[in-house]
């Protein structure tokens, strides 16, 4: 499988705060890759760096083998990457329909964008009923669905999804994941998903990266990590029976 994204030892700083200390990861075409880690581990920063929202001061990021370092987010979006950011970032004063239209504006083929919108609305009947509403009036789950649908309207090859389950009820989270998996099948999407908890992820992901303190703690195939012990250890820095190693080497 060809590597769609290669992140090569990136360091990111916000002023004096160091967010990432040398993260490397790859996503191959067709994979579902998950980054898990506690709050503040650097998961969002990693996705933002790939999408062009923050520029690493060291390391490289390549898409299809080409470095994208320092390029504007709107350029990177045109390479076929689309980000569903944490907190959804819906345009609340725009209608649901306008939110979706913006996603489609990037594309040359307006007719195909329209057809995609129709298909997406079949997938999201709740959005179809509320097309003319200001998006701020949607519920949290509906806003998350709109954020996903809006990103898919750009017809990406790779969808970057930042904590899709944040602040949502378990039932709604299941729905969101069903839709992500469904979209993946229909649109040949590659998925890179951030989550805080590993439960759901382990079922769906091909590969998993665990981040903590801006460093990569663990990388592996989901199939090899099913018992969860290695993940717990990487996530917390200690696990059952490993309490003595609370100060895990960083």
């Amino acid at each position, binding site marked *: 499988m060809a590597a769609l994204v290669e992140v090569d030892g990136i360091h990111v700083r916000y002023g004096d705060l160091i967010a990432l200390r040398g993260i490397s990861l790859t996503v191959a075409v067709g994979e579902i890759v998950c980054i898990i880690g506690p709050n503040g581990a650097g998961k969002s920063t990693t996705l933002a760096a790939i999408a062009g929202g923050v520029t690493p001061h060291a390391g490289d990021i390549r898409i299809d083998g080409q470095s994208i370092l320092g390029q504007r987010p709107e350029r990177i979006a*045109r390479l076929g990457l689309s980000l569903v950011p944490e907190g959804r970032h819906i*345009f609340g004063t*725009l209608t649901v329909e306008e939110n979706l239209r913006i996603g489609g504006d990037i594309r040359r083929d307006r007719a195909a964008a329209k057809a995609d919108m129709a298909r997406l609305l079949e997938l999201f009947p709740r959005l179809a009923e509320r097309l003319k509403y200001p998006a701020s009036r949607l519920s949290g789950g509906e806003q998350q669905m709109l954020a996903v649908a809006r990103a898919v309207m750009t017809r990406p090859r790779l969808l970057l999804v930042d904590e899709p389950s944040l602040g949502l009820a378990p039932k709604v989270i299941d729905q969101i994941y069903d839709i992500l998996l469904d979209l993946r099948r229909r649109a040949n999407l590659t998925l890179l998903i951030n989550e805080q908890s590993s439960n759901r992820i382990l079922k769906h992901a091909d590969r998993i990266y665990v981040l903590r303190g801006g460093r990569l703690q663990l990388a592996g195939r989901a199939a090899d990590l099913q018992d969860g012990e290695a993940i717990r250890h990487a996530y917390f820095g200690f696990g059952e029976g490993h309490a003595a190693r609370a100060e895990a080497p960083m």
Partner: protein
Amino acid sequence: MIQFLQNLIDAISLGSIYALVALGIGLLFGILRLINFAHGDFITIGAYALIVPSADVTARLMIGGWPWPLLIPAVCLIVVVAALLTDALVFRPIRRASSPTLMIASFAVSYIIQNGVLMAYGSRPKAVDLWSGANTQVLIGTLRVPMLQLITLVTTLVLMVAISLFLKRTSYGVQMRAAAEDFRMAQYLGVRGNVVIGIAFAISGILAGVVSLLYTTQAGSLSHTMGVPLALFAFVAVVVGGMGSLVGAVVGGFAIGMIVTMLQAYLPPDLRAFRDAFAFAFVILVLLVRPAGLVPAHTSFERV
């Protein structure tokens, strides 16, 4: 009663001008978090484009002598070009700078334009008679309304409807509203930041061009600082209306026009010299009651 209605028409007419200026400032603030004090000087540029550049005391009309269907687009085009150049040369290189930095840069632009005009045209105010029919009175019932006030009002309405259609119905308009609400997210979706900002500068330039024509026709003279009070009052209008809200900018513009005109009409004659002090005191009162303005905006204050 008639007197009051007459004052009301004056207020609406003055308010229209402020609303157009405030809209130009508000558009750029909404999308760029730029408080553009050079907007008034864009108006000055439009006005001086009407006459031949020279330091002579009497002004000779240049573009100002052209027929209206040519004159209006020509003046607007010149101001749009000036606005786009300002963006390209000044604001684009400091796109990531903070809001106060952008504002200070706009002061610099303002001084550069004012002194440029001073060098090319001299310091004396110049009399310009753009249209002698401007003060023809039109009778509406028992009200006498100067032709120019009617034209100002109609022009303002037309421009506002046009801008609102642009923002609601066109792709670029929707992108602009999205970028004003959350610039970074719009970029993530492929919206070209510099294109959208360029369009905002262009619209702002058209508005400044139209105001320069309306204002010059009414005032009948040019000076290199003529745009400054307009920008100041319009900035106050933007704040009163609600920073970042275009409806707010328009409402604020009319509110300021109303306050200034009514104070001028009804203050005791001894106090009229202090009209602006009373007007701004009123503004402070409004802001004490509604700190976010009359029509608060909902935006996240993130940019680029």
